[in-house]
Each structure stands twice: as C-alpha cells, then as structure tokens.
C-alpha cells in the first residue's frame, strides 16, 4: 500500500470515520423506518426512496467502492420489505430503483476515487518540491562536504519517507573518499569497509558506470552479496551517480517501497536531487581550489611585504652607518691632530724620564717640555714630603723670577685649588681662576684662562702636583685631561722608579753589611771552583786572619776527605746543593764539620758561579753520634727485654698499625717483625676470638682506655696455648692518632701459677666453710651440754668451775671460726653489694648486744626506712662487733652506748660512743688490723674489728676510732663509720 492510501485508511478510522459511520448508520435507520412506515403503517406499496440517495451518495463519496455495501443494503431492504412486510411481489419499479441505487453509487464512487488520486498526486508533488527545496537549502547553507552529504541523506528519509539513504564519494580515480548514511546506522559499516577496499555494491558500480537512475525491484535478490541485502529485504532500491559535467563525485542510493521505485516522477525527483548534490560537491571543490589559491596568494603577498620591510631596514641601517662613519672620520681627523700634539708632549716627557737620573732636573725639564710642546702658558711641579709640604718646586713659563714663586709654594700658603688637590683624590680639575686662585700673589702674572691641577700618583703614593696654566686656544676638555693625567702618571712613575733605585742601593749596602757580620760563613766560587771571596765569619771558622791569606790556600787543603770535595763538585755542577755535610781542616789542622748550602746566583755576576753558605755543625754532629750510641743502646735494651716492645697506632678512621715491633716478636709470636708491621691484623688469627674482641674494644674507644692501658688474653702460638699480656701508655697525637708505646710479654707461667693459687684458694675456702659448719655444730653440742651440766644444782664447785672454763673456751673457739668465715666471705665477695636499709641490721645487732649484760642502754637516732647504703648482710657483723665490744669493755653496772647517724656529703656518718676505759693512742692505729696486733696484749681475738674494717672497706667506706672526749681516753671511745649512701 502506498503511504497516501495507508494514510487515508488511518484517517477513516481515526479522524472522523466514527462520525461517518454513525451518520450513515442513522441515515440507514431512518431509511429502514421510512420503509416500515410506508409499507406497514401506511400500507403503501411505494416508499419515499429519494431520501435513500442521501446515505447512498455520502457512502460512495466517503468510502468510494466500499460504500457500495450501503447501497446493496438499501437495495435489498427495498426489495425484501415487499416480500416480508407486505407479503407481495416486488414491483418492477423497485427493482429499477435498486438498480439506480447501484448505478448512481458506482458513478459517485468512481468520481470520488479520481478526486482522491488527484489529491494524492498533488501531495506527492508537494513532498517532491519540499525534498528538493530542503536539499537545495542544505547545499546553499552547508560549507562542509561531509556534513552536507550526511544531512542530505537525513532529509531524504525524513521528507521522502525513504527507508534508508546513503551517499559515497570517490575521487577522480574512483577511489573511495568518504560516505554518509541515514537509516542504516552500524549496518552501513561493512559497506564502507568494502568501498575502502575499492569494491562497490553491484547497483552502486552500475550507477557509477552510467548516467540515470538504476532501479532494482528487490534489493535482496538483485544485490546478492551486498552487505545491505538483508537489511533492505522486501524493499526496492534506487541508485544514481553524482555527476557534474564529466566529473563523477560518487553515488546516491536509497531503499524505498516498490511502488515508489517504479514511479517515473520519483525517479526524476531522485535524479534531480542527485544532480543538486553533485553540483554542490562541484561547487565545494571549486570553492576549495579558490580558497587554496587565495591562501597561496596571501602567503606570497606576506612574503613580499616582509622582503620589502627587510630591505628598507637594511637601507636605513646602511644610511645611518654611513653618516656615523663620516662623523667618526671627521672626529678621528681632529683626534689625530690632537693626539699628535699630545704624543709630542708625552714623548718629550718620556725622553726625559729615560735620560734623567736627577729628580730636580727631571721635574724642571718636564715643565719646560710641557710649555714648549703643548704651548701651555706656564707649568710647575711641586714634590711633597710626607704628603703635605712641598720640598721641591720647579716651574717654567713665568715672566718674573720663578724662584720667588717656588719659595711661595714651599712656604705652605696655598690657594684653595692647591689645598683641594692635595686633600682630595680627584686627579684633574679646572680651576675657576677668579674663585679658586684668590690670594695667590702671582694671579696677575698667570695670563692663561684656566688652571689644571693634576696629582702625581703611583702605586697609591702621592709624590706631588703638576699645575699648568692653559692658554686661550687650548680647551680644557676630557682629552686634555687625559694627556695631563698620562704625563703626570709618567712623571710619578719616574719618581717612584728613582725612589726604588735609592731603596735598592740602600738594601744592597745593608746586605753587604749583613754578609760581613752574619754568623754564617759565606764564600763565592768561580766557574773553576776556586774561591774568590769570603766573609769574615768564614775566615773565623777556618781560623785565618785575612782574606788574602785564605784565598791563597788551594781548596784541596780545606777538605779533610778528598772524596767529599769530589762529591761536592759533582753535585754543584748539577745546580744548587743543600745541606752538604763534610769534614774540613782549619789553619791549625783541627778537623771540624761544615754543612754547606750552595746556590747559583739569579743574576750574572762577574767571577761568581756559586755562592756557598756554611755553618759549623761540629757540636750537632757530636750530639748525633751520642744519639746514635743511645739508639744502639736502646736497640740492645729492646732486644734484651723479656717480651716484645711495640708501638701501636690507632688512626682516626679506625684503622690500626704497628709502626714498630722489636725482634722479640719472633720468640713471642713466631713471626717476623715486618709481618706484624705490614698488617696489624695478623695477630687476630693468633689471639682467641673473645680476647681479640676485648682487645679491639679497649683500643677502639681511647676515652675508655685506662692509662696506663693493660690487656691480657690467650692465643694459640706455634700450636701451644699461651697467655700474653700487653701494657702501654696511650697518647693522643696532634694529627688525631692514638699512639701506644708498650710491651707484650708471655705470662703463661704466671697464669698457670695464678690458676694453681686460685684452686688452692677455693680449696681452702671449702675447708674453712666445712670446718666452720662442722666445728660450729660441735661447739654447739659441747656448749649445750656444758650449759646443761652447769644447770645441775648439785654440781660440785670445782666441777662447775671446770665446766665454766670449758664453756668459755668453746664459745671463743666458735667466735674465731665465725670471724674467719666472715673474713673469707668478704674476701670472696660472694655476697655482692646492693642497696639496703641500715636499720634492720642495726636493730638486730643492738638486740644481741643487749643480751651481753644485764643493763645495756643503747641510745640511737637510727630509724627504719630512712638511711640506705650500698651493702649486704655483713653489715650486721659490723654493728654487732662494735656494739658487743662497747658492752664487753665497758665495766660499769649500767652500760650506756650512744649511736648517732648524720649526713656527711655522699656518706652516712655513724658514731658509736661508749663510756669504757678507752683505747691508747698507739693502739688506735692498729686496732683494726689483726696482723699488726700480733704480740700485743689486747683483749679478745682481735678479729672482730678486723672484720669491721674489711666489711666497711668492701662498701667503699671508712672506719676509725677517736676518744669520746678529745684528749681524755678514760672517758671512753668513739668509733666513727662512714658508709656511702645508697638508693
């Protein structure tokens, strides 16, 4: 169905069709009612059929041939109403009327159809015109080729109702350029790929080869192999080339309904659209070429304009340079003229500088030269002393007697200009004569217009002033200033040179005086090695009275050993000789040592090939000999020392070395000295690793190294286990090295002895411990039984006495054992040291002491938790011994002991004061030492206070005894204990 018919069909139902049906239905109902009314009610054989033509005409107009159904219904109604309503035969008129119904309806339907076709044609042509207009508008509006063809495709399917459309463009060789589509989407991609490969669809290829529209009825069957065959199944296709003149730009292809494809108007339209697109492409091509030509033209124009600008600039530069050159040329001519004058003045002054040696003559002639060569009106030069006062003044060009002027200047009364020039650093100034020469008595004689003052300076030294009076035709410009500066500089240089000459002469005189008096002998030899001059010191060294006498003696007579002379001659031929030591003979034949240094003079001096400076080194040589003897003695001593003498150095970077080891290292380590000196680490292989680490740790941190330093370790030397010991005193050197000078000895024998002693000591310790325990038990048994005996009430008095004596001795024996054990513990250090409270030990000891007698009073300020020391359990023994002694040796019925504790710096000071019979002065000194008590008639075993002293010393404390009342031992004793604070 064509789209227009389809559209009508839709409108039939959707746009008023319902009202038409209702209208026709209403009319048919009226027709039926009329028929029934006439036939049944009026019982007439004729019906008012004119009304019937209303629905008949309307149905035929609206529905055309379909409307005949209504006609047939009315014809049947008319005929059959006779049969069924009236039950009579149908009259012939009504047959005719029925036939008329059909004929009229057919005629109206035919006419209606013709009108509809004409309307459809008009609509189609309108659509065609719209499509052409749209495409043309697009062509006129779009400047971009790809966008134009894409939108053309979109317009075709929008305005023409085409199913799809695509355009492919090719170049002149029919190579694929680009493509656009509408209605196909991704399905078009294979076609593009195909065209890129140079292949076209069959109808596309045909369209390219011929003009006119290529029509295919069914794309699916006619274009087998085309990627779009399936997509366009059931559709017809139209394809046409896009041609303009002889140029083929591509193809336009559409898929459309079959009936449209066969329409000639459609094909014509399609062709026209294609022509318009081709024209547009042609136009774009021309536009592109035109634009390209314009761009090229623009570039060429820009290039030309740039060239013109460059040439113009070059011409301007050349013109400017030419003008500059002319100006420079003129300037140079003037300068040359000026310079000739300047050079004349400088030349004259320079000639003077070279030729004149006299200072006054130099400055006088310089003034004359300046006046003559430069035509200055007048010139004067004044030389300064100490930078302030003129001492010499010379002038030229003065009309009157110049001596008066010179005196005036030297008198020190200067006009402002001169004062300023002396004070300031500006070299050249033009004076305002009227303003700056005011007061000068020679003002009227100075006929020049301007005065120039220049400082004579060289090497920051001001020698004086050069002053000129300029005549009218000389301009005081910069060039003139430069000339005067140059002349002044040359004169100053000459003055400086003269000064240097004077200084040089003075220095030469001074040097001569020095050579004459220097305490070093100096001689001058000629090319043959003959001495041609000597100084007085040289004569004195050799014992000669005069130079003439010395110079007569041949050189061979001075030398003690002729080999030395030959050696010196050989060395001096090569150049300078330094510190050549040899023995010589004096005039009286005594032999002495000289150290000679010879130099070849820098400047050539007549008969002076070599200058020799020498000094008597006999004393030093004798000292060296003694030193050598000492060295030999030292070497012998080192060789005989029982061990290896060494020098060990630790460098700041951590490296180590043995700069020296004695020969004894062979015996000690089985190594040659050079092996150890070459590599200090060789000893590491000998020493046991743990000892080695200890050694390196002790030397690696010098701050922690003891001084003197000592180390002991074991090693495997020549297959044997040996002990070695190193001792030295480290010293830090200026370069940061640490130097150890020391001795390593084999201490294996000593170590073995020590081991044996330690074993013996441990064994003794064991015996003491065993004995202490067992004897104590025995003592306990004996004393216990003795006490039980003594408890017997009927024990004879004699037996009681024996038992008491036995008990006393058993207890003394137990006390000795206990003391020996305690001393042993102190020596072994087995109890260690810790922070402890003093109070528990003191309290316990006080309780024990109180048991010693009936009325014991111990007064103390020691409290718990307040006084801590570094100690151990033996502190009880200290307090117990001191308190028990105080009780034991008191002798009073009431025993009173004061124990006071106080702080004394880092220590606790505890005083034990008793009221006993006191201790003699000489006994106070030995009371704490059991060994020194041997032979003394002291009470007790004496071990108690020895234990006190040893325990306290093991705590780094002190103990001593004084009189409780100073100077009166009968008032009792005071034991003072100092214990370092703990915690």
């Amino acid at each position: 169905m064509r789209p227009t018919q389809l559209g009508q069909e839709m409108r039939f139902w959707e746009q008023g069709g319902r009202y038409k049906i209702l209208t026709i239905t209403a009319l048919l109902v009226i027709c039926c009612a009329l028929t029934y009314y006439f036939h049944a009610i009026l019982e007439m054989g004729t019906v008012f059929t004119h009304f019937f033509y209303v629905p008949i005409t309307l149905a035929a107009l609206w529905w055309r041939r379909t409307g005949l159904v209504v006609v047939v219904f009315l014809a049947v109604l008319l005929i059959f109403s006779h049969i069924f309503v009236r039950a009579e035969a149908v009259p012939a008129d009504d047959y005719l009327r029925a036939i008329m119904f059909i004929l009229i309806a057919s005629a109206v339907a035919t006419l209606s159809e013709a009108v509809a076709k004409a309307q459809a044609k008009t609509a189609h042509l309108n659509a065609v015109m719209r499509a052409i207009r749209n495409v043309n508008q697009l062509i006129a509006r779009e400047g971009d080729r790809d966008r134009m063809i894409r939108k053309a495709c979109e317009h075709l399917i929008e305005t023409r109702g085409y199913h799809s459309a695509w355009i492919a463009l090719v170049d002149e060789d029919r190579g694929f350029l680009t493509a656009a589509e509408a209605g196909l989407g991704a399905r078009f991609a294979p076609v593009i790929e195909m065209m890129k490969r140079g292949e076209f669809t069959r109808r596309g290829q045909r369209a390219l080869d011929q003009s006119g529209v290529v029509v295919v009825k069914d794309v699916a069957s006619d274009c087998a192999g085309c990627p779009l065959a399936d997509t366009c199944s059931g559709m017809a296709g139209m394809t046409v080339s896009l041609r303009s003149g002889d140029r083929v730009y591509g193809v336009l292809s559409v898929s459309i309904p079959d009936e449209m494809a066969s329409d000639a108007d459609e094909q014509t339209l399609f062709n026209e659209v294609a022509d318009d697109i081709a024209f547009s492409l042609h136009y774009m091509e021309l536009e592109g070429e035109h634009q390209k030509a314009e761009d090229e033209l623009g570039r060429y124009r820009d290039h030309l304009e740039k060239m013109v600008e460059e040439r113009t600039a070059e011409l301007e530069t050349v013109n400017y340079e030419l003008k500059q050159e002319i100006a420079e040329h003129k300037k140079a001519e003037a300068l040359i003229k000026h310079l000739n004058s300047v050079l004349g003045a400088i030349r004259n002054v320079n000639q003077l500088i070279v030729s004149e040696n006299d200072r006054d003559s130099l400055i006088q002639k310089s003034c004359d030269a300046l006046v003559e060569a430069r035509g200055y009106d007048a010139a004067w030069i004044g030389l300064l002393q100490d930078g302030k006062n003129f001492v010499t003044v010379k002038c030229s060009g003065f009309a009157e007697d110049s001596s008066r002027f010179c005196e005036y200047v030297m008198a020190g009364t200067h006009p402002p200009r001169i004062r300023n020039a002396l004070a300031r650093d500006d070299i050249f100034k033009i004076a305002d004569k009227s303003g700056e020469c005011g007061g000068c008595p020679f003002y009227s004689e100075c006929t020049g217009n301007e005065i120039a003052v220049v400082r004579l300076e060289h090497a920051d030294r001001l020698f004086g002033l050069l002053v000129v009076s300029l005549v009218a035709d000389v301009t005081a410009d910069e060039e003139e200033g430069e000339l005067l500066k140059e002349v002044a500089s040359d004169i100053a240089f000459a003055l400086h040179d003269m000064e240097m000459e004077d200084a040089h002469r003075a220095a030469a005189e001074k040097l001569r005086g020095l050579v004459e008096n220097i305490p070093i002998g100096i001689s001058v030899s000629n090319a043959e090695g003959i001495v041609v001059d000597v100084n007085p010191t040289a004569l004195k060294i050799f014992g000669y009275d005069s130079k003439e006498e010395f110079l007569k003696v041949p050189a061979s007579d001075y030398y003690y050993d002729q080999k030395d002379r030959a050696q010196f001659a050989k060395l001096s031929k090569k150049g300078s000789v330094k510190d050549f030591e040899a023995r010589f003979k004096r005039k009286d034949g005594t032999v002495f040592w000289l150290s000679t240094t010879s130099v070849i003079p820098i400047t050539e001096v007549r008969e002076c090939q070599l200058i020799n400076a020498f000094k008597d080194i006999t004393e030093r040589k004798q000292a060296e000999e003694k030193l050598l003897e000492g060295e030999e003695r030292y070497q012998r001593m080192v060789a005989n020392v029982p061990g290896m003498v060494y020098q060990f150095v630790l460098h700041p970077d951590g490296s180590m070395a043995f700069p020296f080891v004695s020969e004894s290292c062979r015996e000690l380590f089985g190594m040659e000295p050079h092996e150890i000196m070459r590599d200090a680490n060789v000893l590491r292989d000998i020493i046991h690793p743990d000892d080695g680490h200890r050694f390196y740790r002790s030397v690696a941190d010098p701050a922690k190294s003891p001084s003197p330093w000592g180390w002991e370790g074991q090693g495997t030397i020549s297959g044997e286990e040996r002990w070695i010991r190193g001792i030295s005193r480290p010293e830090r050197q200026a370069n940061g090295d640490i130097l150890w000078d020391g001795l390593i000895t084999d201490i294996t024998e000593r170590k073995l002895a020590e081991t044996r002693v330690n074993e013996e000591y441990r064994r003794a310790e064991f015996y003491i411990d065993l004995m202490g325990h067992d004897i104590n038990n025995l003592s306990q048994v004996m004393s216990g039984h003795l006490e039980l005996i003594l408890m017997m009430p009927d024990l004879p008095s004699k037996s009681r006495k024996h038992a008491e004596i036995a008990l006393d001795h058993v207890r003394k024996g137990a006390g000795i054992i206990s003391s020996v054990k305690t001393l042993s513990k102190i020596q072994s250090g087995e109890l260690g040291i810790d922070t402890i409270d003093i109070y528990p030990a003191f309290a316990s000891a006080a309780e024990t002491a109180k048991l010693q007698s009936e009325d014991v009073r111990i007064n103390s300020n020691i409290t718990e938790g307040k006084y801590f020391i570094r100690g151990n359990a033996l502190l009880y023994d200290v307090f117990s011994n001191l308190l028990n002694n105080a009780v034991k040796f008191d002798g009073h019925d009431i025993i009173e002991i004061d124990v006071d504790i106080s702080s004394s710096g880092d220590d606790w000071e505890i005083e034990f004061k008793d009221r006993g019979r006191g201790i003699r002065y000489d006994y106070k000194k030995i009371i704490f030492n059991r060994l020194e008590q041997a032979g003394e008639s002291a009470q007790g075993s004496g071990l108690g206070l020895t234990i006190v002293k040893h325990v306290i010393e093991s705590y780094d404390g002190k103990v001593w005894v004084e009189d409780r009342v100073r100077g009166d031992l009968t008032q009792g004793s005071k034991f003072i204990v100092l214990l370092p604070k703990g915690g």
Partner: protein
Amino acid sequence: MARIFIVDDEPMLHELYGEIIGFNRHEIVANAYNGEEAVEIFREMDEPPDIIIMDHRMPNKDGVETTKEILKIDPNIKIIFASADTAVRGAALASGARSFLSKPFAVADLMDAIKEMVAG
C-alpha cells in the same frame, strides 16, 4: 608444754635439743635430718607442731627453702632458725622464720626463744 619438730642434719644436735627441750618439759614430736624429709613429715603429720627448730645447711634442701615450703602448707607455724651462717639471717627472717639463733647459741637463748613462741 610445746610440741616441737627438730630439723637438723647433725644427729648429735638432735640429742642436745632433746636434752634441753626435755629439761624444760616440752615435747619433741618429730625429727628430720634434711629439708625434703622435713617437708614430707610435716605434710603427713595429723597435728602440726607448735614450733619447728630449723637448721640451714642441710642435704637436699636448705633451711630457707624448707621454711618457705612448710609455711606454704601452714602459714601459722612458728619456726626458730638456728644456723652458724649469720649471712642467712636476713633471708631466714624474710622467708617467715620468727627468730634467728646464731650457732653456737646459749641454751638460755633457745629456751627464751621457745618461751616467746609459746607466749606469742
């Protein structure tokens, strides 16, 4: 009258303790000759003693350790430590012993100590 347990490795001392304690009308209820034996006997006793007299240096287990173990079993037991080794005085008292007697001690000291234990 106190019931006393003697712990000492020296048989002669057991004998002495027996004499002294009997003299003062107390009763020895058990004897042990080393620390382990003492702990074992103490554990098996139906009625614990009033006082233990404890030596320090003994085979197998010393007096301080034995004191600690016994006090773990019965914290109220009263122990008199009797040793020639004065250095263990602190450790003995710290382990829980009520009194320390340094051998050789006087019989009176032992009796005073027992009296104090009984009273306290």
